[in-house]
């Protein structure tokens, strides 16, 4: 099958959906050239650097029958528009009693590893998970981002698409034929029977690498990529833990009140799953520090394969 990059797959998804639905509109400070060329400057708007205004404008567009896609770029910039995300987009469907639909896609990059320092290195998805009313997807492969982004554009609710900054150039198989991927279906990236490793965003790849290594030691790790954070596919994760009896959650975001805390909690809260646990669950997350600039400190602040390995060994004890 042909291989294209994560970013190309995302661009394809938008191109297909924009051709399919004339009500789609794109807002961003940087213009996506292909979309602009095909759909013109009215539908593909270049915005000023004023995130609150265009994150909010998307809500008004959606409430007026359009289907906006907003590229906020780095999640960091989203904080300037947080009122529109948290107070408006997340709540508007509900507080108006569901009388209107708000189909919106917000794209934001997350993650660290490029020495961008504290203000440009963050993975704040747990903040958005604490806001009922926002769907959240976290695609990790070219195949997934194309399928999930297409579903997001057709969804009648605000959907936030978090894209790890290190994945943009990654190649992967993507069929020529159209397809969509449903929300709320985790992917078991690797089957295993000894330990369940739930890994988020770029960490999926580190978890897989570690799993291969440990396989040689006879440790069989099952690696699960949740793919969407709202809705959460709790079933797949719980079933896996009931099978393996062990849980390690790997997330680049800083530890405290992270998504990893939610995965750990909904697993142990289930009496049935809890009874199957053979050892204490572990979280392997970023340290609770802003991300430092200098490479030795930055890599130390982020979870790495050694820590994932160590955590898995611990839960195996």
């Amino acid at each position: 099958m042909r291989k294209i990059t994560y970013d190309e797959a995302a661009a394809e998804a938008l191109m297909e959906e924009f051709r399919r639905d004339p009500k789609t509109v794109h807002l961003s400070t940087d213009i996506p050239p292909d979309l602009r060329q095909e759909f013109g400057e009215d539908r593909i708007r270049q915005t000023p650097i004023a995130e609150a205004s265009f994150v909010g404008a998307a809500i008004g567009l959606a409430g007026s029958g359009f289907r906006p896609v907003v590229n906020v770029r780095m999640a960091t910039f989203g904080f300037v528009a947080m009122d529109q995300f948290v107070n408006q987009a997340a709540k508007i469907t509900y507080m108006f009693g569901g009388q209107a639909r708000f189909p919106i896609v917000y794209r934001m990059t997350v993650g660290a590893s490029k020495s961008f320092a504290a203000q440009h290195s963050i993975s704040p998805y747990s903040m958005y998970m604490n806001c009922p009313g926002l769907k959240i997807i976290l695609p990790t492969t070219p195949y997934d981002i194309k399928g999930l982004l297409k579903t997001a554009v057709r969804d009648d609710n605000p959907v936030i698409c978090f894209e790890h900054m290190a994945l943009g150039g990654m190649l992967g198989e993507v069929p020529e034929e159209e397809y969509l991927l449903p929300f709320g279906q985790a992917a078991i990236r690797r089957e295993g029977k000894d330990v369940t490793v739930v890994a988020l965003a770029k960490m999926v790849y580190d978890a897989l690498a570690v799993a291969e290594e440990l396989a040689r030691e006879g440790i069989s790790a099952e690696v699960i990529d949740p793919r969407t954070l709202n809705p959460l596919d709790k079933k797949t994760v719980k079933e896996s833990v009931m099978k393996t009896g062990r849980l390690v959650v790997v997330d680049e975001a800083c530890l405290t009140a992270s998504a990893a805390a939610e995965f750990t909690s909904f697993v142990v809260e289930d009496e049935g799953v809890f009874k199957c646990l053979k050892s204490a669950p572990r979280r392997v997350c970023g340290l609770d520090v802003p991300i430092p600039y200098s490479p030795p400190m930055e890599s130390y602040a982020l979870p790495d394969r050694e820590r994932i390995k160590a955590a898995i060994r611990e839960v195996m004890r």
Partner: protein
Amino acid sequence: MVKISRERLLNLYRTMLTIRRFEERVVVDYHSGAIPGIVHSYIGQEAVATGLCANLRRDDRIVSNHRGHGHCIAKGADLNRMMAEIYGRKTGYCKGKGGSMHIADFAIGMLGANGIVAGGLPISAGAAMAAQLEGGDKVAVVFFGDGASNEGEFHEVLNLASIWKLPLVFACENNGYGVNTPVKVATGLDYVSKRAEGGYGIPGIAVDGNDVEAVYEATKKALAGVRAGKGPVFLEFMTYRWRGHYEQPGLTDLRPAEEIEAWKEKCPVVCFERKLLKDGSATKQIIDKINAQVNAQIQAAVDFALASPLPAPEDALEDVFSA
């Protein structure tokens, strides 16, 4: 200035009166404990929503703020469903999920009240952009107060509207205060509209917000340009809120008593009623008839609310997402 038809004049009167009576009733029922939560009364500002919305079509869109009952009524919202919402009933506009601060009726282009100061401005930019993309001459209107003009979102949207020539009417209700902070203290200006002119090249017009005819005419004039694609306009309506910032027993209101009294003298409803009688546009009988009808409507709305069931607790689980 073309003469406003007698019928229209009477409609303007009827709408203002409806808002006034609706708000008076809400205030009473709030303090009696029948209405929960928090309500911000529009009493004193009726001429603004009334005169402005009289120029709007059903398919024009408005975005409102925390003081939104008047905007809803003027845009043609159903009093029963409004009152039911404020009473927290299942038959309300938002099934009881929104309440006073979040009434909306998308079917008539009322895109919702908003509890965040200036929070509705970005949304209105989207509504205006929608009108622009749809073609035709639809417009969007955003109501906000003088205090909202200090929030960043206000600035961002003025800029967006000006560079994109959005068919957007900025309707600033300058009632002199944000809670207890005078406009002058918060903005250093007497007229918020100066900001539109100066920094964004958006025509800014200050209007007597207690004179419904002045509001009507100013809006009509402004809208002609907006509908013709000439871009946004900023209308600033100088008015006053009679009551405290919101309804609460013993709420501190630091505004001078004489000032409040002076403005009550300029009551938009009473002054207009006098004028109608004086120039013969209306007779005592007509006025009485309208009053009787309005009072009946308000009572009917309350009856409807009281006769409506409260939502079931489990209804809280619905509408987080659209299916």
